[in-house]
């Protein structure tokens, strides 16, 4: 029932004596204190999330160079904010001296506020989400006086705030600091289930349900337009959800308890709010029974309090507002509450004359009013029944009004105005004779009520548990404080809590861990796209928020941590299934299950992998900081030839493997200044052909696999590929007549008989022999459009197999010759992956995604 974090000093604050002493010594008199250093951060509140998100977005976006200035601007903006925050923290200080709290603030316009503690009425504690994460709290001082002036100390640590609050109250009541404050009696608290039901049954909640249902059915029936309809109503939905959330958060677990100075309300899931409604400050009470709630016997009760703070606490003076002391409750709850707020509310009510039905047919059945010596009650409302109670002492003015219809019917209305603009009771449509009689009576009653309360202070101090008050201002108190506290005992120190920081750290860590598990087990992985950034950016924030709220206000036990971690771990796995474009497509084994040596760069530098049949049997040879590329597996599967820049320029290496594909050792074959690449084995596995690039030229070389001196075969040529029968080497080289037109050539393995065989597109390269040696698949196209082409060895029958806006490159053939392997970025996820397809371009399947 009681919130230990919000425990008023009834229990000794800080059961840990050391912590208490530290906090106390930090609050000794005659010393200036600063607020907590994190205060500016907490004060920026929600803006902070947005700022961080925007910054993240800017940093990860890789745009043209022109955007750098924008980025610098963002950083500068953030820096200015940070400096401003630090300065505001530096110049704000407070101290308690001679029964006064002084708060000084401001750098240029220095302001010093003094709060004489004898005029202190109440100290409220407010803890927004961020503050709770850091274990901070804000103290709001409410002073006597019509304007409801306020002092804010935002933010102090929780223990400091508790101690200071106790101290201020003790000073205000002029009692010893150690005296425990009078206990509070918890009247009731609102069950969460009922609150949710009541919000859903409100007009706003119903509209949200309807909008949601329409959108959902629309999406189901016409999935194509779902995006448009959801996008179009996104703003509405967001606004509705925000309002609903505010309502929910503001009233979540609202607990009303009776304190010595009035009613104390505590509520909030994420932002915790504690406030006090002072006895005698209540201007009016309003009970609303909406039509939809009536079958359930529910009602809502507000009090109108002059000088109440706005929820945000930004505008302190004009904070007159209705406060729902009972967001939803039974009539019995309302009656009990009313007895406490207004002990002698009139009980009997008079109905209006039946001819009033002609003027207000809809309202008639709700109209009535009643009064006694201290207050009056009116009911009204067309759909919802609204009952207002106003004490005579709080009436500001009376108005008698008669319209033309009313004159015909001999009716009149008396308006009873109270402070503010929220409630004004209306004695509607009464007989003129009655109003003529009642108006002077009411005037007299109000005058009498004003007189009796005149000169007495409206707020009460009760004798706190046996101590005597030194002042003579002891006041009456309409509700006696119960002699024994029936609040729960304070939590023992042994009970284990998650501190805010732990939770704040645990949730993202859990998220990261969950992401890693999901990536490993489900193939889910982060995509560098804006949509995903949004998901990755916001889901954790929401998650942290919800988790912290749950952990600290609902469960508040060891299980909180467990639940929290479970949610954080499970969420990415669920997301991997739900978020479109995140789930990895299935990888299919290439027919014949060939072993392939590939080089890929999933995490930075390109490294070697051996795919033994399919993607599930992938051997990594370790991640290296240097680049290893152009991998080629020897025909006997015992060696991988590759190029690496391990020693500066690219050189040719051979890795020897055991029969199951594990590395035995790595040998270096060449060490020239040129860059080796594009490695291919001879079918007998004894020779390796490769390209050496140096300066502008590229030359095809051949070398014995066991080592030796490379021998040049062809100048100005690249992409060598040995034919399956070993009699030819296909390669790409420019057309003699046009140096920019690369064609596919073949030559004998000793470099003789070069022949230009295929000229399909302006640039043809990367030939790959089919298993029977009859056809060559190659990459062709212009500079920006690459596709996979197929032609006979003599250049006839050229066919575009895979062409389109994606970049496709021929990679080779499956061993049985039934499929063409190719590399493509067709998944549009920012990577180039290995696919295979039929030689006619059909049946494209993903083979390996790294």
């Amino acid at each position, binding site marked *: 029932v009681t919130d230990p974090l919000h425990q008023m000093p009834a229990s000794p604050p800080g059961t840990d004596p050391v912590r208490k002493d530290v906090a106390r010594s930090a609050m000794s008199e005659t010393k200036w204190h600063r607020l907590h250093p994190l205060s500016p951060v907490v004060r920026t509140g929600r803006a902070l999330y947005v700022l961080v998100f925007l910054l993240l977005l800017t940093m990860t976006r890789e745009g043209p160079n022109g955007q750098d200035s924008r980025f610098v601007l963002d950083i500068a903006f953030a820096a200015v904010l940070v400096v401003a925050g630090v300065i505001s923290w530096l110049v704000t200080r407070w101290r308690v001296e001679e029964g006064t709290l002084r708060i000084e603030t401001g750098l240029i316009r220095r302001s010093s506020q003094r709060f004489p503690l004898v005029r202190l009425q109440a100290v409220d504690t407010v803890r927004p989400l961020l503050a709770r994460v850091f274990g901070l709290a804000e103290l709001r001082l409410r002073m006597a006086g*019509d304007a409801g002036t306020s002092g804010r100390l935002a933010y102090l640590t929780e223990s400091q705030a508790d101690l200071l609050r106790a101290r201020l109250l003790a000073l205000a009541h002029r009692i010893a600091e150690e005296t425990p404050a009078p206990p509070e009696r918890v009247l009731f608290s609102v069950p969460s289930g009922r609150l949710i039901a009541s919000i859903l049954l409100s007009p706003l909640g119903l509209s949200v349900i309807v909008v949601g249902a329409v959108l959902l059915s629309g999406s189901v029936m016409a999935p194509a337009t779902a995006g448009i309809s959801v996008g179009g109503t996104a703003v509405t939905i967001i606004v509705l959800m925000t309002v609903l959330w505010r309502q929910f958060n503001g009233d979540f677990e609202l607990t009303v308890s009776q304190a010595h100075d009035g009613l104390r309300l505590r509520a909030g899931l994420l932002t915790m709010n504690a406030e006090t409604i002072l006895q005698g*400050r209540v*201007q009016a009470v309003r009970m609303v029974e909406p039509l939809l709630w009536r079958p359930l016997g529910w009602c809502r009760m507000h009090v109108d309090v*002059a*000088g109440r703070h706005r929820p945000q606490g930004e505008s302190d003076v004009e904070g007159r507002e209705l406060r729902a002391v009972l967001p939803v409750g039974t009539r019995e709850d309302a009656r009990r509450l009313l007895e406490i707020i207004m002990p002698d509310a009139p009980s009997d009510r008079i109905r209006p004359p039946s001819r009033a039905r002609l003027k207000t047919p809809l309202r008639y059945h709700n109209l009535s009013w009643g009064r006694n010596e201290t207050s009056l009650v009116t009911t009204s409302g067309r759909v919802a029944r609204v009952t207002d109670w106003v004490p005579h*002492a*709080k*009436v*500001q*003015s*009376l*108005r*008698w*009004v*008669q*319209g*033309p219809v009313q*004159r015909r019917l001999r009716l009149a209305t008396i*308006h009873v*105005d*109270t*402070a*503010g*603009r929220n409630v*004004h009771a209306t004695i509607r449509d009464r007989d003129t004779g009655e109003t003529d009689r009642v*108006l002077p009576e009411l*005037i007299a009653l*109000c*005058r009498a009520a*004003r007189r009796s*309360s*005149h000169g007495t202070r*409206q707020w009460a101090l009760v004798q706190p548990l046996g101590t005597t008050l030194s002042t003579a201002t002891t006041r009456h108190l309409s509700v006696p404080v119960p002699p024994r506290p029936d609040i729960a005992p304070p939590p023992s120190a042994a009970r284990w809590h998650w501190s805010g920081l732990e939770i704040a750290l645990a949730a993202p860590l859990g998220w990261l861990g969950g992401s890693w598990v999901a990536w490993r087990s489900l193939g889910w992985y982060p995509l560098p796209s804006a949509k995903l950034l949004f998901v990755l950016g916001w889901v954790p924030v929401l998650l942290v928020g919800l988790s912290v709220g749950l952990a600290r206000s609902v469960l508040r036990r060891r299980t909180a941590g467990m639940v929290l971690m479970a949610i954080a771990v499970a969420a990415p796995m669920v997301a991997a299934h739900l978020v479109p474009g995140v789930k990895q497509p299935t990888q299919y084994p290439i027919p014949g299950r060939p072993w392939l040596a590939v080089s890929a760069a999933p995490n930075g530098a390109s490294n070697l992998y051996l795919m033994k049949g399919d993607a599930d049997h992938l051997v990594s040879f370790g991640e290296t900081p240097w680049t290893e590329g152009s991998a080629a597996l020897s025909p006997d599967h015992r060696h991988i030839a590759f190029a690496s820049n391990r020693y500066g320029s690219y050189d040719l290496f051979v890795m020897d493997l055991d029969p199951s594909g594990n590395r035995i050792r790595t040998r270096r074959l060449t060490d020239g200044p040129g860059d080796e690449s594009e490695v291919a084995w001879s079918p007998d596995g004894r020779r390796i052909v490769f390209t050496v690039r140096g300066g502008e030229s590229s030359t095809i070389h051949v070398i014995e696999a066991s080592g030796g001196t490379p021998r040049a075969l062809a100048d100005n040529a690249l992409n060598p590929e040995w034919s399956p029968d070993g009699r030819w080497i296909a390669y790409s080289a420019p057309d003699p007549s046009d140096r920019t037109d690369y064609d596919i050539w073949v030559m004998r393995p000793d470099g003789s008989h070069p022949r230009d065989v295929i000229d399909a597109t302006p640039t043809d390269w990367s030939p790959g022999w089919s298993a029977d040696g009859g056809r060559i698949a190659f990459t062709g196209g212009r500079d920006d459009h690459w596709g996979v082409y197929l032609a006979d060895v003599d250049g006839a029958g050229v066919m575009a197999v895979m062409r389109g806006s994606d970049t496709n490159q021929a990679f080779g053939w499956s061993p049985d010759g039934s499929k063409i392997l190719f590399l493509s970025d067709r998944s549009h996820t920012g990577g180039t992956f290995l696919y295979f397809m039929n030689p006619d371009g059909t049946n494209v399947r993903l083979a390996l995604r790294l």
Partner: protein
Amino acid sequence: VAVPTGVVAAVAGSVSGISNAPSTGVIVAACVTALGVVVDRFVQRRVRTWGYCERDDDLLVKRGVLFSRLSVVPYGRMQFIDVSAGPIERSFGLATVRMHTAAAATDARIPGLSRVDAAELRDHLATLGESRAAGL
């Protein structure tokens, strides 16, 4: 009311007379004048019903023909009183006294007082308000 009616009638008549036939202008001017006379009757009735009464503890303000209203404002509830005079009111030496309480719904104002009367009423009400002030 007579003066603005005459001005408006003349302006409307001459404008429509210039742009259309002169007879149209005459008709428009006549119509405007007739309208002004009707409005004048209403305004006169409205002004006649407007009244206030200072009692021991409160101020009564009565007004309205179609909707008759009677406001009761206790002196002790007055938060402040302001006296305002627009350009037309100033040209006739008049002023409006308006009483404010903590309630937004209170609409007690007394227009058409001479400036001296208005100042006197304001001071008088302010003294009464001070002596009987009550907290919220």
